[in-house]
Structure formats: C-alpha cells, structure tokens
C-alpha cells in the first residue's frame, strides 16, 4: 500500500476492477451447477413418460420403492438417535482418545462401500461356537433371538435387516459429522447457566441444548436418508439382490441394467432423483419455516 501511495503521490488512488475476480468465481461455480443439471436433463431427454408408467406398474419396482422408503426412514431415525450422543459428547467433553475416536468415526466415510459390505458379511459369518463342519455364527445368534422375539428365525444376512444395517453403517457417519458441527455451533454458555440454575447435565441437554439443535437434527436426518437411498455396494454384498426381498431402488437399477433394460433403469434412477429432491426441498422448507417463525417471534 505504501509503495502505491509513493508511486502516485499527486493522483487519486484507483482500485483495479473486480470484474475478472467475479467472472472467474462465477464461471467456476456455474460450471459445476450446470454439470449437475445437465446429467439430470440428459436422463430426462432419453426417457419417455411411458417408461415411467411401465416401471411404476412393475410389482418388483413397486416393492423396491416401498422397501427403499421404509429402510431409508428407519436408517435416518436410527442415525439421528446414535449420532446425537456421539456428536454431543465429542463437541462438549474432553473424551479420552478423542483423535482416535474421530478417526474411527471417519472409517465408514473413507472406506470403499463394497468393503463395508464385505466386512459386515464377514462379521456376521464369524463362528462364535460349534465346529468347523457345523459352525454357529453371529447370524445364527440373531436367528435364535428373532425366533424368541417374533417367532420367526429370520437372520440378518441377505434379509431386510441387512439392508438397513448396510445403509446405517455409512449414513450414520455422515449424521455424526452434522450433529458434531451443530453442537459445536451452539455456545456452551447457556448450558453452564442451566447447570447453575439447578439442572444436571441431562436436564440441561434436554431442556436447553436439544431445542436449539432442531435444525441440525433435521439436517442430519435428511442427509442420512438421502445417503441411505443411494446406498448400493454394501447392500449388494451384505443383503444380496433378491427380487421382492432385498431389492431397493439402486439394486433395481442394477438388476434392470443387468437384463439390458436401460430405459427402465433410467426411469428408476429418475424416480430416485425426484424422491431425493422432494425430501431435500421439504426439509429445507420445513427447517426454514421453523427458523423464520423462531426469528419473527415477538
């Protein structure tokens, strides 16, 4: 700055134009946004309305849509329930081995999805008792438990619970990140005051912290839901791709492609895109509205 002043002692100081800066940033931003829109539009151009109605009338696909919606919702709820305490404890307390725990929580995010499926398969196939010729595996354990509870000896592997578990393993890691960030943004001062006013930590959490983290919970749930909807690798390995049993939407796309039905696969893909957009918009809208109400409150 000093040199500029020295070089133009008797002239007005002029700032260079901002146009190149904004042109560069805006063009890089729009490149990516346009790219996202283009891949969706390309799909829409290729598919006809008839393909949608054929897909939607197919009982396999109807089952797949239902199963996707149900498993994703269960996964989202489970992810929120689990990520809430992890996020809170990591954000507020000096947990021993915090760096290690943080890294462990990143494993599902960085691990290839297929490997997660394989690892789940191996875990549930571990022999806990019995002999090599007649092994008693972790999955068998669940069979006994489910027989006692529900009267059916359904295990986990290659069954619907495997779909949820495979989705949950990855989706929850994302929910944890979101919840952690949410609690990091909430000042601990209000909790401190609540403690001096007579609360224990539990009361301070439920009464003071939780109401403030509503938007974070909503975001974590949505993220987990959307993440679960797209989960494919671990489901394929751990739950299988059995029609009318463990077939969720990404598996349907895979199966349709496998029999050469590209248009059908495309139609299902676009149904998934639509479902994801609807959920995202809905939550943005709900979250935004709540926030507005909260701000406008007299």
């Amino acid at each position: 700055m000093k040199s500029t002043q020295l070089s133009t002692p008797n002239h007005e100081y002029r700032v260079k134009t901002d146009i190149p800066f904004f042109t560069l940033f805006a063009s890089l931003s729009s490149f990516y946004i346009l790219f996202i829109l283009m891949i969706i539009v390309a799909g829409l151009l290729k598919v006809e309305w008839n393909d949608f109605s054929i897909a939607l009338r197919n009982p396999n696909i109807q089952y797949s849509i239902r199963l996707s919606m149900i498993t994703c919702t269960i996964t989202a709820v489970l992810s929120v329930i689990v990520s809430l305490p992890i996020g809170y404890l990591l954000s507020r307390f000096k947990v021993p081995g915090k760096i290690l725990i943080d890294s462990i929580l990143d494993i599902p995010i960085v691990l290839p999805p297929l490997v997660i499926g394989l690892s789940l398969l191996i875990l549930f196939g571990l022999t806990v008792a019995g002999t090599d010729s007649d092994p008693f595996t972790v999955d068998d354990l669940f069979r006994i438990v489910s027989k006692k509870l529900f009267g059916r000896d359904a295990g986990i592997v290659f069954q619907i619970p495997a779909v949820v578990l495979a989705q949950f393993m990855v989706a929850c890691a994302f929910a944890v990140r979101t919840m952690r960030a949410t609690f990091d943004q909430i000042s601990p001062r209000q909790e401190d005051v609540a403690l001096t006013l007579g609360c224990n930590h539990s009361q301070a959490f439920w009464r003071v912290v939780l109401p403030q983290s509503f938007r974070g919970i909503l975001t974590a749930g949505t993220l987990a839901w959307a993440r679960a909807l797209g989960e494919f690798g671990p489901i394929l390995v751990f739950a299988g791709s059995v029609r009318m049993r463990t077939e969720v939407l990404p598996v349907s796309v895979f199966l349709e492609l496998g029999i050469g039905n590209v248009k059908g696969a495309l139609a299902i893909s676009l149904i998934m895109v639509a479902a994801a957009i609807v959920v995202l918009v809905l939550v943005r809208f709900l979250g935004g509205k709540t926030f507005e109400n909260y701000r406008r409150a007299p």
Partner: protein
Amino acid sequence: MITIQNLSIDLGTFSLRDINLTVAAGNYGVLMGKTGCGKTTVLEAICGLRSIKSGQIHLAGRDVTKLKPAERRVGFVPQEGALFTTMSVRRNIGFALSIRRWPKKAIQERIGFLAESIGITHLLDRKPEGLSGGERQRVALARALSFEPPILCLDEPLSALDDDTRAEMCRLLQSITKNTGVTTLHITHNREEAVRLANQIFLFDEGRIKEISHEQVIRPVGEMG
C-alpha cells in the same frame, strides 16, 4: 460470604496459583484486571463450572468445593446474558423454579414479582431474539435471582451497553443487591463502574488477587486494565 482459599487451577496454557479472595456477607465485590488474566476462570470456579486443582471455596457458610454447580446456589450472569434462545423471557426467568418443581402458580407469582422489580414486565412474552443489550442483561439478572441464591456472580454484565443504559443498570444492580442482601462478585474493566458499585474492590495482577481501595482505582499505581 464468598471465600476462596489457596485456589489453584490448571488451564493448559497457563495456570492460576494460590488465589485468595473474601467478599464479606452482603457486600458487593468487584474484581478487576487485564483481559485474559483469569478473572472469568475464577468466577467459573466459584460457580462450579471449572474443575480446580487444589484449594477451597466457601459460599454462604458452606464448603462448596466438591459440590455440583446446581447445588452451590449461585446466581450466574455471564457476558451477553446467555439467555435460553428457544424460550420466552417468562420461561427464562421461571426456569430454575420449574426445575425445582415449584407449583405453576407460585412460579408465575415469583416471575411477576421479579419482572416488576427489575422493570421487564412488558418483555415477559417476548423471545430473547430482538431484545436490546440492556433488556437482555435485565432478564439474565432476573433469571439468576429467581431461586433466591445467597451469592450472585456477574461476568462483565455491562460491558456491551451504552453509557446511559450502563448508568441505569448500575442503579438497578445497586438497589436489587441491597434489597435482596445477596453477596455479589462482579467482574469489570470499567473503573467508574467499580467505584460506583463496590464495597470491596479486588485487582487481579500478575496471577494474584489483592484488595485495593477506591482511591487506588481512581488514581491507579502502575498499570491496570
């Protein structure tokens, strides 16, 4: 009475050693010192929000060193108030009483009385968002006094206020603390505020707390924050 004896606190980057301080019962103590010297840490230790390494803290005749914050009966007003953002002013003030499971009617009566004496009756049904700095501090004060604590701890409660509001709040603090008989410890940078409010003034200097006279605050010897 607030008594701190040989208090030591480890803060990671630095530590406080052998802190001693006594505010006589019913007195208004003001603690002054440079930014970052550990004033807030001492206040947090009194409230039970900061774990201490050694030493003792006595409040209103009880050894509270090992008690939880909730059991110490300290009214705490942090910087900027830290009002519960999702609750109305009314619920903020009644919070400590609803935790103590007071009957609803008694809570409303207490809220009404406090709001009246602190001059915030017209704010009761508003949310903290949108309140002015002075209004926030009044609500925080009412909330801190709601459960009739014998001790009141204020962390720079007036630092973000304009001069007129500050003078008004000083008058309010004077009358409220006098009427309730609460023993107060108030942290501030502001000399005028200290002289105006305090019966006892303490200076945090080079890791030690020493009591100084009002004259020393007005004409400081050496450097002071």
